[in-house]
């Protein structure tokens, strides 16, 4: 479904993603693990088109020089030159790290914005109801300003927003970052519900333990370079992976 071939991303001369190959098949949940500054966010932002947007913006005003090389294929189609909104139309929707919500809008308005590109309002309404069924705590917060919600609730809103956009491929950037173990459990549970919706998921995380049992395959990157990849079992049997990403 998604094929990333020899992807390289430079910020000026600094290499953020180095010759990376990654593929996601339909229906899978794929994890990308790596420490802070390993290039996870750059990778996922590049797939969502945000890096390209930033590159255009910087180019126009003569700022930082960003270089993206390599192939990005989605359903056998080259998406490398598409803007973020065109990629959303194709079905690639990103939920960024640190639960970025529209803080001054109500929870329900946030979710409605997730369906911005869907013209059919009835469909948006249905998707919002679906989000409420995946994250029941949000039902009580409909009219509260998103900025006043807790971190965990904001993460639910952020994932909910991405779901309302009806993704084929959902990109989750560090969905568990900064959440309490109880909240992490809710998000992990939601991941199982999302799989039932036949949405393919590519997620990144620093700490692999809570999420590892739920992924099909994983990629481990360090300093922007892919150092290992494999199925869930292969990764969980590897002592190096266990010591580095399981905290054991």
């Amino acid at each position, binding site marked *: 479904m998604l094929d990333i071939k020899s992807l390289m991303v430079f910020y000026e001369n600094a290499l953020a993603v180095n010759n990376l190959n990654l593929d996601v098949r339909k229906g899978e949940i794929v994890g990308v693990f790596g420490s802070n500054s390993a290039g996870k966010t750059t990778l996922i932002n590049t797939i969502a088109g945000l890096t390209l947007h930033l590159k255009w913006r910087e180019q126009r005003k003569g700022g930082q020089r960003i270089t993206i090389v390599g192939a990005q294929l989605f359903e056998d189609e080259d998406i490398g030159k598409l803007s973020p909104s065109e990629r959303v139309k194709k079905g690639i929707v990103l939920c960024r790290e640190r639960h970025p919500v*529209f803080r001054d809008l109500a929870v329900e308005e946030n979710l409605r914005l997730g369906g911005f590109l869907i013209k059919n309002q009835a469909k948006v309404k249905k998707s919002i109801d679906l989000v409420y069924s995946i994250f029941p705590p949000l039902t009580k917060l409909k009219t509260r300003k998103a900025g006043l919600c807790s971190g965990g609730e904001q993460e639910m809103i952020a994932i909910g927003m991405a779901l309302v956009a009806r993704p084929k491929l959902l990109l989750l950037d560090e969905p568990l970052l900064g959440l309490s173990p109880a909240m992490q459990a809710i998000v992990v549970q939601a991941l199982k519900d999302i799989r039932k919706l036949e949405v393919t998921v590519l997620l990144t995380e620093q700490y692999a333990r809570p999420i590892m049992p739920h992924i099909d395959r994983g990629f481990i990157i360090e300093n922007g370079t892919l150092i290992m990849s494999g199925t869930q079992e292969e990764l969980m049997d590897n002592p190096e992976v266990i010591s580095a990403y399981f905290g054991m």
Partner: protein
Amino acid sequence: MLLESMLVFGLVNSAILMLMSFGFSLTFGLSGVANFAHGGIYLLAGYLAFFLLRTLGLPYLLAVIITVIVTALLGAAIYRLVVIRVRGIALNEVIATFAIGISILELFRWLGFITYEFSLPCIVDGRLTLFQTTLDYQRILIIVVAFLMAVFLWALTHKTRIGLALLGMAQNEYTALSVGIDSDWAATYSFALGGAFAAIAALMILPLGIININIGYEVLLIALAVTVLGGLESTKGLILGCIILGYAQVITSTLIAPHWKEAVYLAAILIVLAVKPSGLLGKFKELEERV
């Protein structure tokens, strides 16, 4: 008697300030770009309406619609052709838009639009006497339109899909991008809305006097003062700022001398920047200042 007329004319004055600054504040609030060409667009709308009404003799409503559409397109063009290239560099945005504003204003001066024949007609003539204060219909209409604009703005941003998207873009650009809202589309839209609002303000306010090039500079100054006073990105703050400045002006001009009222804007900008730089209701910015 004095108090009554101060109350009434303070309200009229507040409404005038509100209309003048809505466009500027809207564009700034939604796209983060201070459009210093606002005064130029305002004056251009005035001359365009004059041309359509007096020279071509079009019916009033048609002239209004054409003027609003043209200024909206002008706003959009300013973003698409100029601001887009310097987006994100605040100083360059200011210089670029200010240069456009001055070009428009001084072009009219150069073309000789400096005589006293330029004025727009009132929508309805006549006046109304309430208790001891006489007020013409145009000023009453200004209050009504200012109120309607505030309601329209609220409804646009909270009830429509596009308005909501513009608000979202203003609050969190990258999240908006990741749900498929295009940032250049949003900025173009907000510039066009700002232009349309400037035209509506010009059509309402200019009939009160003669169209004069310097009004363009004055409008920009007012918009800036009100936005600084009320706090950026806060519509409530904008309205509060207009009421404070509007009454302060009327009070100074009645109690001290009319020419002192011009000093009120500058004093307001200075005091606010010295005491509470985020403005009266600019809560978010203040939070960032604290961190």
